[in-house]
């Protein structure tokens, strides 16, 4: 599978360095290695979800209890989570570190991903969520560290968009 295992490892190591110990996930192709790494890691609690919005609740509980968490989802999972983000995380000033695979952007071959790709950044803007597109593996550790720092200091959701350039090798 051409999902980059090298770059997935860089992302995973950066999450660990940022102190993340709870990861919620709803699988999608690009996240396969990241979910596998979390599953194999005895230091991390992996919560496999039925719907991404549940992850907002998991992260809220973790944060209030003093643990750092991250959410792994694709951009359609972000769309599915919007009310939880607004009515729990933003209303109650809960930091969320959201790693969102950015499907439906330049180079996308799957027609069904394209509408989500079109609206992802505009939805983040409308929600007032600070985000960064991650495409350079050399900057990935910095990007994750900075996103985690901002989420914790602002007590707000922060999103990292995992692009095709970072996640896919062809």
């Amino acid at each position, binding site marked *: 599978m051409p999902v980059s295992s090298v770059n997935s490892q860089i992302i995973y190591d950066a999450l660990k360095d940022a102190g993340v110990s709870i990861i919620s996930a709803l699988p999608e192709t690009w996240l396969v290695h990241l979910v596998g790494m979390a599953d194999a890691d005895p230091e991390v*609690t992996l919560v*496999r979800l*039925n719907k991404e919005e*549940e992850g*907002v*609740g*998991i992260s*809220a509980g*973790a944060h209030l*209890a003093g643990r750092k968490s991250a959410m792994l989802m694709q951009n359609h999972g972000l769309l599915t989570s919007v009310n939880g983000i607004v009515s729990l995380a933003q209303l109650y000033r809960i930091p969320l570190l959201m790693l969102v695979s950015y499907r439906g952007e330049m180079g996308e071959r799957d027609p069904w991903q394209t509408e989500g790709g079109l609206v992802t950044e505009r939805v983040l803007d409308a929600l007032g969520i600070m985000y960064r597109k991650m495409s350079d593996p050399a900057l990935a550790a910095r990007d994750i560290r900075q996103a985690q720092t901002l989420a914790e200091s602002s007590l707000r959701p922060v999103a990292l968009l995992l692009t095709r350039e970072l996640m896919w090798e062809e």
Partner: protein
Amino acid sequence: MLREDALRAIYPRLKEQIVVTIMGAVAVELYNLGHRPNFFYLEHGMGLASSMGLGLALSLPERPVTVLDGDASLLMNLGTLSTMARYRPPNLTHIIFDNESLLSVGGFPSATTTGTDLAGVARESGIRHVTRADTVEAVEEAYAAAAERPALSVIHSKVEAVGPPSFAMDIGLLENRFEFARHLRGGQP
């Protein structure tokens, strides 16, 4: 049975637990029994109280956690039951107060009026300890058993669709949130 009476019966045990409630009526009823720093009232984010309870239970495995849920809130996030069943934190108790109504928005009938059995859904989602408790004594007994049992427990209680006249509470959302976090973190912000 009035939910308020059921809450009063289990309040002595609730006091010792980390508690997450849904919005509206049940939040006010618990608050009026006596607020504690270990009580969090999720006044929006409909459906997510149970997910928050799961996050808390997984994060603090040594502390008992109770979720006070409603039928319509649970119906909005039914997948939460199978996620809970998957990880079955032994320190989590999920109480579903089923008034067959969306009471807090004016009392529209929920799908439990037309045959959906939430205890059945919980059981078939893979939760082993599911108890029906429709009297005050039964709730008290079921909650005592759940609190003693080192296993994920669900209590499903049919209650009357009656709530307090007002949902006003003399505690701000963020005041509740920061006090709760400080309490859980042992005094650290």
